[in-house]
């Protein structure tokens, strides 16, 4: 199975260890993983700011880089959702459509395609799960608290396989952290307040780590935690799932 590794631009630049963890994890699970070198960004920061019409270049580049793979896997719900919903190119619409169908967020790829039931991972810590809205409500990685529908959660399904991991239950299970792309600077006051409130919910449950499938949310929460000099750390779910049994 040939997997194209789609690494969000900010992960490439700031959090290379998440890319490494994702790649190692996928290889451990038997995938042939390639990282197309000319990838940059999915175009979401522009599109969400109202500049979707300027994302043509990003789209072409994405198709150049990712056509031909059996699957495209990304350790970000938000970037995956953007490609799923907005990747188009007039001249290569068929290719764009194939890519839209083949792109997966990491946890759903593990649960739905690889059907992972037994992860050899170990993380002896108390952890809170931050559901990114794009992953949860957009990609439906977990049931949403607003709906009257049966519970499921792909990230939780995986975290439960991690030995010694103590997953806490939050009082607001799927409240937005307030990152929101450029929202985090254009609506700074609200963004920060939302982040502080999210952090507090985790702190109230005495977590050591906040994890999640979207490093953008975690980067925002980390920024707040560090400013508050909190001992709580953030860690991407790929790093937990890839943690070795020692």
């Amino acid at each position: 199975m040939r997997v194209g590794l789609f690494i969000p631009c900010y992960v490439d630049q700031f959090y290379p260890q998440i890319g490494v963890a994702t790649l190692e994890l996928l290889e451990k699970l038997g995938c042939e993983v390639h990282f197309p070198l000319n990838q940059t960004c999915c175009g979401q920061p522009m599109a969400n700011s109202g500049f979707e019409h300027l994302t043509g270049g990003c789209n072409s580049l994405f198709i150049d880089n990712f056509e031909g793979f059996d699957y495209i896997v990304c350790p970000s719900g938000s970037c995956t959702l953007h490609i799923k919903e907005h990747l188009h190119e007039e001249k290569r619409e068929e290719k764009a459509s194939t890519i839209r169908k083949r792109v997966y967020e990491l946890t759903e790829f593990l649960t739905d395609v690889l059907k992972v039931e037994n992860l050899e991972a170990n993380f002896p810590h108390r952890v809170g799960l931050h559901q990114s809205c794009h992953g949860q409500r957009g990609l439906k990685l977990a049931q949403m608290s607003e709906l009257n529908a049966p519970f499921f959660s792909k990230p939780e399904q995986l975290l439960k396989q991690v030995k010694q991991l103590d997953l806490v239950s939050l009082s607001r299970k799927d409240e937005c952290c307030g990152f929101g792309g450029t929202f985090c600077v254009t609506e700074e006051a609200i963004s920060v307040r939302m982040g502080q409130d999210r952090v507090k919910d985790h702190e109230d449950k005495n977590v050591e780590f906040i994890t999640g499938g979207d490093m953008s949310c975690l980067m925002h929460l980390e920024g707040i935690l560090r400013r508050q000099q909190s001992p709580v750390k953030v860690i991407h779910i790929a790093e937990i799932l890839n943690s070795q049994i020692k």
Partner: protein
Amino acid sequence: MESKVLEHSKASEVFNKDKERVGWHDETLWFVRSKRDKAAHNIPDWELLRSTASSIKHNVLSNMHDYLVEFEKNALANGVHVHWAADAEEHNKIVHGIIAKHGVTRMVKSKSMLTEECHLNDYLSKNGVEVIDTDLGERIVQLRDEPPSHIVLPAIHLKKEDVGETFHIHLGTEKGNKDPQYLTEAARHHLRETFLTRKIALTGVNFAVAQTGEFVVCTNEGNADMGAHLADVHIACMGFEKLIPRREHLGVFLRLLARSATGQPITTYSSHFKKPREGQEMHIVIVDNGRSTQLAREDFRNSLKCIRCGACMNTCPVYRRSGGHSYHNAVAGPIGSILAPNLDMRKNADLPFASTLCGSCSNVCPVKIDIHDQLYKWRQVIVKEGYATTSKKLGMGAMTFTLSNPAIYQTGGKVGRWFMRNVPFVVNNGLNPWFKNREMPEPPKESFREWYLNNKKS
């Protein structure tokens, strides 16, 4: 003439200065959202109910012309006067015309967001007509000379101390008494006298039934009924999208409305007005005010399905922390942000950006309006039409250029440096709002790409 309106982000900044109060506001509305969840989760067919309601409303949009004609015909046959208003001004003139014809100068009014949208109270007051709002929340904000901050809970931004002070000044209640029971009792006495003495009552409309020509008004307080049943003239004002095809469809919408709004199984009173009381005069004013334009916008017409339950506001993490007034529109919150640009795109260009696009609004919406998708789509329209003030500042052009050019992206310099220079939320200078309350991640020794080239690329 029009006072300077603060952009949503600026108004939110002001609102967020009082941290404790923001926390209180958030918790209060979250409490309402939680009640809504409990009610929704107690109804096994809830999701089917939502999709049914959405389909009914879709049918209404697709057959609006005929339903309106049918409604008018039936209402006329019921002995009701029917008026049509193309815009807010015409609506206000029609209402004033009815009042003037009866030679009165005082009116009671129950909640009608449409009249807020049309600024009816201002218009009538300029024309010498005194209007008393009778919904408790609306009366509170009216006495304070403020607009409602929420379509269902107009005074949700106020604490009981604020209400106590307002009532002390205007209704002569004891100074310092902030007991909700005591204050509500004071309002009951004050407004009872009003109900008993006013000759004209205006109400909103929750649903208008094409099949029968009747309209339904829902309240918990009973103020619409007290006003209408004691007045000689009842004026009911409605946006044309309030129509539903048949009486039996009320079963669907009345099950959804109160549960979505406050978590109640139904409002205390769901009153069906079909004919005027003997000796009474009844008027219906059907208003367009931009709705027919919205109907033409394929991406946005679903916003006309809205039944004004306010669930999207209660669940919105931004609304809960910015307050209704920050939306500078009669209807605040997520739904207001997709309705307002249709009314005035320049003035409301900031509103579709006042969201993280988290999508919770679309999930609670009882008629399944794709609210957060419409927010995204409005952003595209607003930028294309050239109204994007905030987005322009972000230097999207430079960013797009680099992100479309791998060579430039890769040679951008040391890891993280290109980002620090170009991506709006990480631009590394003292002016970047990111740093006011957050740290930036530390750039690592190597990027993932560099790691990959060193370790993996064969």
